[in-house]
């Protein structure tokens, strides 16, 4: 557990959008994709994914369609909408700026007068 990074609040939505932006995915695949693209460093609690997915659908950022999984199980696939793509871009930009700012701040050395 200690090696897994805790998700910062608000980042789950961003990660989901990113995961889905690479192609339509069903819920379980979204989890695997997040683990995969984070280099096995970020894990999402399985059940907690769905409320987030539902919220994003309701906000019109994702759309859904029932289909078949790779091993032929019926599953619900999530896909990014145009609005979702735009949001992903905005959030990514914001995240990069914020991360840079925090990194810069943390890199500061004590200055002697």
């Amino acid at each position, binding site marked *: 557990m200690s090696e897994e990074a805790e998700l910062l609040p608000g980042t789950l939505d961003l990660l989901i959008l990113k995961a889905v932006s690479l192609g339509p995915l*069903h*819920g*379980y*695949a979204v989890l*695997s994709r997040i683990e995969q693209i984070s280099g096995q460093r970020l894990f999402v*609690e*399985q*059940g*907690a994914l*769905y*409320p*987030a997915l*539902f*919220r994003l659908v*309701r906000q019109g950022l994702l759309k859904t369609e029932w289909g078949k*999984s790779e*091993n032929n*199980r*019926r*599953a*619900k696939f999530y896909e990014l909408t145009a609005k979702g793509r735009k949001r992903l871009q905005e959030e990514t930009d914001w995240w990069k700026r914020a991360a840079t700012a925090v990194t810069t701040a943390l890199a500061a050395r004590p200055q002697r007068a």
Partner: protein
Amino acid sequence: MIAAYLRSMARRFLRRASNEREMDEELESHVQLRADALERGGLERAEAERRARIEFGSRVRFKEECREALGGNAIDQAVQDVRFSLRSLRKSPGFSLVAVITLALGIGATVATFSVVNTVLLRPFAFSHPEKLLWIYSQRSDNPRTNFSLPEYCDYRDQTTSFEGLAGVASFNPTFADSGPPERVQGVRMSASAFAMLAVRPFLGRTLIAEDDRNGARGVVLISYGLWSRRYARDPAVIGRAVNLNGETREIVGVLPASFALPNLDTEIVVPLQPDADPRRNVRNSVNFLRMVGRLKPNVTAQQAHAELEAIRQNLQRQYPGVYTGKVGITVIPLTQEIVANIKSVLLTIFCAAGAVLLVGCVNLAGISLSRAAARQRELAVRTALGATRGQLTRLLLTESFVLALVGGSLGMLLEVWGQRALLRLVPTDLPRIESFSIDWTVLLFAGALVFVAALACGLAPAWLLSRSDLRDALVSSGRGSTGGRLQSRLRTWLVSGQIALALVLLANAGLFLRSFVRLSSELPGFDSIDVQTIRFSLPQTGYPDVATIVHFYDQLHSRASAISGIKSDALISILPLAPKSISFVHFTRPDRPPARPEDTPSTNYRIVTPEYFRTMGIPLLDGRNFTQSDDVEHPPVAIVSTIVAKNHFPDRSPIGQRILVDDTDGDPRPIEIVGIIGPVKQTNLETPAKADIYLPLRQMPKDGVPWLRNSAYWVIKTSGGAAGVERLLRDTIQNVDPNVAVGAVRPMSEAVATALAARRFSLLLVGSFAAAALFLAAAGLYGVISYGIQQRNREIGVRLALGATRASIVGMIFKEGAVLFAGGIIAGFTIALALARLVASQMYGVNEHDPLSFAIVGLILSIISFLACGIAARRAMNIDPIISLRSE
């Protein structure tokens, strides 16, 4: 529009069902996919699925969160909460029943009193912009509310510039006859222009218009909503019908709205004043019979108008010296205030008392649900463990109390609807505007608000407790001695002390009302009402032009009555005692002691009687002689006065044989010799001390009084007991003398005394029963807390007993606990009661509002009841068997 709304609701519910299905399917597919992955990793299928499910976590909780994420499901959630509450309330039927009954009675009583307050005080008056309307009396040195004469009114009307209009109003109680039996009605004569000024809309037909007041205009009459309902069964065809008022034919042109009311005047009928047709129009010294009502011009204040009227009055007094003796000023009161003045504080007191009972009930229920919440801590802890958030649990508890309040409130509303007839029988009949009573949307809205407040009052305490306690501990500690315990018991202490305090306040008020009532009912009215019957009657306009004909009528009546075996004596009087709305007084002077200033001329109640009156009413003759048959026009005029006249105006000598100048005609004051002194009589009500009375014999009455006496007089009869059939007999006796006499209802004099006490009986009855209810609830609350404490500490008590504590010491402990609760409540209660006493001071009679005796007795009653409550609880503790209680856990 409603159909569209229903359709969208239906769609929502259908979609909800499909959403649920989809959600289940999706989550299940997730678990299967995960299991596939685990299976590929080398696990057995069954083990893989098990693992996948555990990894997934609480599916119920995530589904709940998904539903929330889907949004817009507040209604679904509420429905779910309500369904759940109903289920859990069904599980504890005892509590639910007690709660529903408490709330039904509390809300029912509060709504019922509110509906009366609403009708009498809150509903808009029938007038537009009532705040600009003023009611105006002539002020005398001994009475701020007396009347103006007709010429005087006309002068004010013509000279004022402050009012848009000034109308004259006089009481007018004619005999009302149409095809049905004639009856006496209580109404007014009023300037026809008044209706435009008051801006009263007719319920049917029209109101009066300026033309109706013109000399020679066709006779018209308006009837009240009440008279229309009672006499014409709300027949709209009544408009245009001809009726006969005191022998004069008039056409009904309109029905007044039910909310129409004037201060201290009944308005069953309204006829135009027609001042110019009145023979008294230019008689400066004529009778005072008019009050005035005026609408202020915009930008004129009541003070300015008052000052202007005052200036006109002083001018008139200079212009007509000696005519307006005794009139010292003008009394100006806002119209609406004058209508409800007497009843406002009484109604508000009763309303507050009902509200207090509801509050005590709610606090009681809060206490009970607090114990339930404590007992349910395990259940709630389990729910938390299963994923319920604290917010959800709080909502659940509040929903429960809301469901209870809603059921209780609906029952209370039913009680109100069913009981409204009983309620109307209970209220004093002279309550202004009460005939327009109805349960309207304001009442419904109020009831709704009350349900809401009651739900919060009952449910907030346990919900708050929940938010403060750690439920996980409850799960671990097996539900006993949980951490919320101390906080909870402190909260319960406060609640019970609060109940005791409220009960004390109510009891103290009930005590004060009771003492006032007892004082007042023990007031001697000055007459003996036992076996005395009274009948009000009016003689027809034709056939009784002078005193002699009236005397002749009475002589015939008297001789017939004397022949009836059950009648001991009978007499005639112009106005009965305890008649709050009838005023008749005259000014008089002692020739040897003329008043220093004209306005200091004393006045006295003025009554015309026959000689048997004092014997019939049991009023003692204290000195001198009674009237005789020979006190007639052939002999010098004589009078009998009450002891008050003797005391106030003849301190130096006996008034017997003295002459006074009595101003009871349209001419100059005439000398009358005092021949007797009788006891004082309360003429208006029981509260007001007896004032000066002067009685004149019927045979010597001045001819100016003929129309007045013909219009209204009372026949009083002392019977030898046994009221059965007496009414028929008395009415027949009058009708046998003259079938054209309009005869009112036969009313025992004792009923008049009861009516004089009615308002106080009403408030005593209500506040008393509310206090009793509060006392019961508070005692139940106290008992509940103490016995709950004992139950919680069953084990502790068992241990103490096992270690050798005596039962007496256990009982001592319980009583000490009770005493702390009681002391807190009683101190708070006394403080509140004393602070509020000022508000009921105006309703006290012969009792100080801080009356120590009432407070002491009330404190004593409360202590006894509390002692009993503790005692019963202690008895249960005494029965604890240490062995059983130690083994029970």
